[in-house]
């Protein structure tokens, strides 16, 4: 079985957030429930100020702290699904401990105050146990893997678009949107990326493009000191996230 991994080249990423939009449409997430978000930073001052941005999906860690803390095994790492970390919505009790334990902030509890008004959940009230039920929905709902629209009171997260990836032919090294044979199996954020800053493939296959990029272009993992060992790698400048500084003191240093 493959070990699915993602490579994001920050030198090519333009911060356009098409990935965020594609993810939200593919997975029917609510405003603010951005399984794939792009974070923006700025450092320094004019004339040498720098602006950085960082696309942030779930890192699908090899050693995921969210999985260790879940008291019901609702969140689990599935080696038979390429090592993707899922949330079983039939088991999640909504304790939110995984959200505390995730160093990357990529888990969401959508049963919260709406980010924008009017509340889209009121426009499309939930049916059949769903938190909300918009007219278009991803037809491949799978609550055991946290795919589709969640019921109230559970945690949701990026699934590497497993509902697409799972149809990929056995043994394929890379899921490249430019390859017509596999393009339908490529995660939405990768497929939509206009500057082709994202790559998706098998980290266990030394011949895969993702492994070659990591090797050739010095791929790094975010917050590697946490020991979580993400399956998402970043290339290029900009993967160093500046430490938090309150907005009113950004220019003090």
């Amino acid at each position, binding site marked *: 079985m493959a070990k699915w991994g993602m490579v994001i080249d920050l030198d090519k990423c333009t911060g356009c957030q098409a990935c965020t939009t594609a993810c939200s449409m593919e997975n029917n997430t609510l405003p603010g429930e951005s399984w794939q978000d792009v*974070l923006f930073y700025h450092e320094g001052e004019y004339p040498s100020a720098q602006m950085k941005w960082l696309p942030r999906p779930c890192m699908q860690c090899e050693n995921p702290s969210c999985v260790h803390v879940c008291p019901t095994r609702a969140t689990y790492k599935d080696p038979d699904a390429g090592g993707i970390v899922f949330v079983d919505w039939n088991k999640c009790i909504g304790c939110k401990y995984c959200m505390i334990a995730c160093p990357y902030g990529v888990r969401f509890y959508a049963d919260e105050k709406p980010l924008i008004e009017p509340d889209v959940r009121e426009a499309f009230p939930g049916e059949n146990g769903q938190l909300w039920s918009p007219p278009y929905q991803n037809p491949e709902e799978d609550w055991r893997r946290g795919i589709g629209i969640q019921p*109230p*009171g559970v945690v949701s997260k990026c699934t590497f678009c497993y509902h697409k990836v799972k149809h990929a032919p056995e043994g394929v090294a890379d899921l490249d949107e430019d390859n017509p044979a596999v393009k339908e199996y490529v995660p939405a954020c990768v497929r939509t990326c206009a500057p082709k800053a994202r790559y998706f493939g098998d980290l266990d296959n030394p011949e895969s493009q993702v492994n070659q990029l990591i090797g050739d272009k010095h791929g790094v993992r975010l917050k590697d000191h946490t020991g979580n060992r993400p399956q998402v790698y970043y290339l290029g400048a900009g993967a160093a996230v500046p430490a*938090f500084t*309150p907005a009113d003191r950004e220019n003090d240093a």
Partner: protein
Amino acid sequence: MSANTQPNALQGKLGSLLLLVASLVFLASLGYGVVQLATQGHTSFNTSSTLPWGQPIATYLYFALASSGLGLIASLPLVFGFKQYYPIAKRCIFLAFIVLISGMAVLALELGNVFRMLWAIPLNLQIQSAMFWMGVFYALDLLFLLWKFSKLQNGEWDSKTSKQVGIASFIGVLLASGNLALIFGMMSMRPFWFDALLPIYFYFTGVTSGVAALVFFVYLAYGFQRERMPRALQSLLTGALPKLFAALIGGTLLFIAARAITGLYSNNPEISLVWTDYLFASPLYNLSLIVGLLVPFALMLGAQWRSRMDIQVLVACLVFLGLFAERFYFVVGGQVVPLFQGTWVPNLISYTPSATEWALTIAGWSLFFVLYLLGEKFLDLGDMPKQLADSPQAAAQPAGT
């Protein structure tokens, strides 16, 4: 009522009146909270995906640790032979039991799918999760507290089984609250909480809040009239207990000071900024430190003052509230620094509890009161071994004699 105890102020009309008031407050706050949750779900909370644990978790933590504190105080006479503490042992065990029930009730209303927990935790046996062990240890804790209480209710103070259940209860308390500390203390990705010695901090501050609750409720039981109390209880309240209380408040201040100093010194903004920009920047936190702990400590330093009933009751109330604030700021403080400094969260995450979250907290407090008043009414909580009630001097002797 057993012949060992004096008439209890709460067994008469006063108790019934307080019970009525507490029940009304409980029903009103619970009703409001449940209706809000049923109609709006957790959107009625002010927590968010960036700050998922709010005041209901802090309330649970506060109650659970007060319960552990009370359990540990009860172990002084029941496990370690400090006989002068016998007059409060039964009340401690009872209070420990009901405050834990109240905390668990609040936690149940905080969870997304509470009933699922009943099968999903035992059937999946995720032994890597501290929260799994929290379920195991607090269930055992509750069981042993109840068992111990039933022994005391039957007048079995010193039987072999009673002693063994007492020891089991003591160990249960240590495991439960120590493990509760690890739920926070093992989170290295939340540096404000990450602390190998957090269980010790929780034991200590838990005992402080437990003594605060105990002092208040003991006086309430006797209508704030010391002369109505049994002699052995009077000598405890003018002797060993206020000294212990003073030492506990002082120790709590030391713990907070140690955490604050290491936190402020640290270059890591996820720790230092919590102290500079959240805790010490908050007038309410400073007020809770000064009025909830420093002033009570100063009041309890003088031997004359600390044996006065009015001072003890005042200090108990202040410390009880002060430590509630301490738990709140501990829980929220671990989450206020956003994990990534993103465009979306340019500052510390702000959080103020919503009306529903307050309703759950008030429901917890009032449930605690209701259960307490029922206990005083029907369970003879002031009972103690007969030889102590007959001869209070025996209790005043040093421990182990």
